[in-house]
C-alpha cells in the first residue's frame, strides 16, 4: 500500500480528525473553525462529523479562547484552539505567558494544561499587514511551552498528533506558505516530538531550518551541489525544547553552519542556535556560524515581501562567505 499524497492543510485536518476520534476529551474551537472549516480550511468537515459539542465557533476574542481553554484543560479536557493569524494571537499573549506556560510550575505539577494553540504562521502568501508575522521567539523565550513547527505534510500530521497527546501546552506554528504543498504522508511513520531530523545528508556545511524555510534549505542544498558544496539540511521541527544533540552532531561533522529563518534576525531564533552551537562545537568550527534571516523591519507589504524573505540565493551567498580554504589563502582552486 502506498502512502497517500496530501497537502499540509489536508494532513493537519486528518490529524485533528484522528485525534478527535481517538480521545473524547479532545475539543477543537476558535474563530470560524466550525461550519466554515477555518479560513485555511484546516478544520474542514470536522464540525459536521463530530458535532457542535466537540468542534465549535467561539466569540471573536483571543484571550477568551485561550483563557477558557485553560479552564477546560484544568477540568480534564484537551482543547485544540486556532488563532486565525499569527499577529492576532497577541491579545491572548497574557493568558499564554502568565497562565498557560506557568500553571504546571505554579502549582508544583498539580495542574496540567494540555492545550494546543494552532497558529497559521509566517509570510510568503501575499498577506496584508498583521497576517504574516513570525512570532516564534515570543513563545520560545517562555519556559513551559513547547513550540513546534512542521516542514512537511507528514511531519504536520505526526507532530500535531504528538502535540495533542503532550501533557505540556504546545504552540503549534503552521507555516502558511506550506499549507498547499503536497507530499506523501505515511500515517504509520511516527515522528518523535522534541527531535530535529537530518532531512538531507551532506559533508561540508549544515543548513539549519524550520517550518517555512525547510523547502528553501533543501533547494539551496541542491543548488550548492552545483557549486561544489555538499550541504546537510537539519529540520528542527521542535523549536523548544531544542534538540542540541542532533544539531550539534551535524555541525561537528560538517564544521560549518548557516541558520535560516523568516523572522527578523535581531534577538531572533538564529542567535540562540548560533550561540548554542558555538558553545558546543567551537573546536569543530571552520567558520563563524552565519544567519540568513528576514530584515529587522515590520513585516513588509505583499509587493515587497520577496525582498524580505530569505531565498536560495541569500543562503547560497552565506555559504560562500563561510571562509572556505580556497578563499582564505587564495591558492587552492587557482589554475
Amino acid at each position, binding site marked *: 500500500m502506498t502512502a497517500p499524497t496530501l497537502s499540509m492543510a489536508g494532513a493537519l485536518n486528518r490529524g485533528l480528525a484522528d485525534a478527535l476520534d481517538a480521545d473524547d476529551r479532545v475539543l477543537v474551537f476558535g474563530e470560524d473553525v466550525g461550519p466554515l472549516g477555518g479560513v485555511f480550511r484546516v478544520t474542514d468537515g470536522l464540525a459536521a462529523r463530530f458535532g457542535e459539542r466537540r468542534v465549535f465557533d467561539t*466569540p471573536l476574542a483571543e484571550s477568551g479562547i485561550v*483563557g477558557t481553554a485553560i479552564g477546560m484543560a*484544568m477540568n480534564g479536557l484537551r482543547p485544540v484552539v486556532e488563532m486565525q493569524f499569527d499577529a492576532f494571537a497577541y*491579545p491572548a499573549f497574557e*493568558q499564554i505567558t502568565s*497562565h498557560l506556560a506557568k500553571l504546571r510550575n505554579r*502549582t*508544583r505539577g498539580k495542574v496540567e494544561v494540555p492545550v494546543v494553540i494552532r497558529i497559521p504562521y509566517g509570510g510568503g502568501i501575499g498577506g496584508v499587514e498583521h497576517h504574516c508575522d513570525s512570532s516564534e521567539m515570543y513563545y520560545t523565550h517562555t519556559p513551559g511551552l513547547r513550540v513546534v513547527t512542521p516542514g512537511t505534510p507528514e511531519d504536520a500530521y505526526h507532530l500535531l498528533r504528538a502535540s495533542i497527546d503532550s501533557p505540556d501546552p504546545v504552540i503549534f506554528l503552521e507555516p502558511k506558505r506550506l499549507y498547499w504543498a503536497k507530499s506523501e504522508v505515511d500515517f504509520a511513520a511516527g515522528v518523535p516530538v522534541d527531535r530535529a531530523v537530518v532531512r538531507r545528508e551532506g559533508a561540508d556545511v549544515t543548513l539549519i531550518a524550520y517550518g517555512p524555510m525547510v523547502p528553501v534549505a533543501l533547494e539551496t542544498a541542491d543548488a550548492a551541489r552545483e557549486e561544489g558544496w555538499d550541504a546537510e539540511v537539519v529540520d528542527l521541527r521542535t523549536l523548544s525544547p531544542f534538540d*542540541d544533540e542532533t544539531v550539534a552532531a551535524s555541525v561537528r561533522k560538517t564544521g560549518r553552519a548557516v541558520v535560516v529563518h523568516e523572522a527578523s534576525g535581531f534577538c531572533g531564533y538564529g542567535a540562540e542556535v548560533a550561540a548554542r552551537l558555538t558553545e558546543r562545537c567551537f573546536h569543530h568550527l571552520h567558520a563563524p556560524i552565519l544567519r540568513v534571516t528576514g530584515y529587522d523591519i515590520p513585516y513588509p507589504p505583499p509587493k515587497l515581501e520577496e525582498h524580505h524573505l530569505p531565498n536560495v540565493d541569500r543562503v547560497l551567498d552565506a555559504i560562500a562567505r563561510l571562509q572556505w580554504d580556497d578563499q582564505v589563502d587564495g591558492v587552492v582552486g587557482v589554475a
Partner: protein
Amino acid sequence: MTTVTRSERGLLPAAEPLALLTAAGEPVPAPVLPMPGDEVLLDLHRRMVLGRRFDAQATALTKQGRLAVYPSSRGQEACEVGAVLALDERDWLFPTYRDSVALVTRGVDPVETLTLLQGGWHLGYDPYEHRVGPQCTPLATNTLHAVGVAHAARLKGEDSVALVLLGDGATSEGDTHEALNFAGVWQAPVVFLVQNNGYAISVPMSKQNAAPSLAHKGIGYGVPSVLVDGNDPAAVYAVVRDAVRAAREGGGPTLIEAKTYRIEAHTNADDANRYRDPSEVAYWLSRDPLDRIEAYLRSRGLLDDARRDAVLAEAEAFAAKVRDGMNADVAPDPAELFEHVYAQPTPALREQAAQLAEELR
C-alpha cells in the same frame, strides 16, 4: 413574605443594593430574597470571626517579616465568607490574591493558603483538593479560567458551578468582558462576584467606571446582574446561593456586584492616607459586617456571650496554628526550581539543575 426569583428580576440590577439586614442588624422591611436559615447564619458568623482573626494574624506576620506581602480583606468578610458558604463541595472557586479568607473558609489549610504570600512557592495547596483555582495575581485572567472550568463541567455532564471573585478595578480589564461574553453565549454555569471595595489600589470608582453600577455591565452580555450590600453576610449568601442554584439548573451565568469597603490599605506596603480620607473609613467601620450579623443573631436569641466566647476561643486557636505554621522555618528545595516546568525535565533543564546542585555543594 414575597420573594423574587432571579429570572423575574430580569437583567438589570435594582437601583439600591439588595439587603436582608440593615447596618444596625435589623431585618429590612421588604426583603426580595429569603433570609438564610439559622444554622447558616450561625455558620456565617463563626466563619467571619475566624476569617477576621486569620486576617489580623497574617497582617501581624508581615510586620514580623514572615510574609512578603499581605493584601488584607478586613471589612470584606461578608463577601469572602458569604459567597464561599453558598457553594457546594462539587463547585469551584477562583480567587484573587485578596481572597485568603475565602480560601480558609473553603477549607484550605491556612498555612498552605499563605504559601504564595510568604514566598515559599507560588502556590501551597492542591487546586483539586477543594476545587480552588490558584490565587490569581494578574487581574481578571481568572474570570476566563472559571468560564472554561464551568463550561467543561457542562460538556462532561456534571452539574458543578464555578464562582469567580474579582475586584472593582478588574472589571476594567478586557478579560472580564470576554469572560462575561463567553459565559453569556455559552450559558456557562458561572457566577461572577465583584467585590467593589471602592478602590483599585489608589484609584477610586469615579475614575474606573461610568456606568450606573458595575452590575450594569452584565446587561450588554445578556448576563442577569445583581447589586448587593456587600457588608450584609445574609444577603451576600442568599444572592450567591440563588445564582449558584440558577447556574446549576441550566440558567446560565450571573454577575453580582457587592458594595463593600477595604478597611486596611491595599497591602501592608501601601499608604492609604495618600488617597482617602479617614472619615470615610470611620463611616464604613460603622457598617461592619461582623457587628451586623452579631446584632441580628443576638436579637433573635441565637447568639449569647457564651457562644460568642467559644467562637473567639476557636479563632485564637486557629490564629495560633497559623502562627506556628508560619514561624516554622521551612526552606524550599532549590532543586525543585527545575521540576514542574515540563512534564519531564528537558536535557537543558537537567544540565541547569546539575549546575545549581554543584554550586550548592
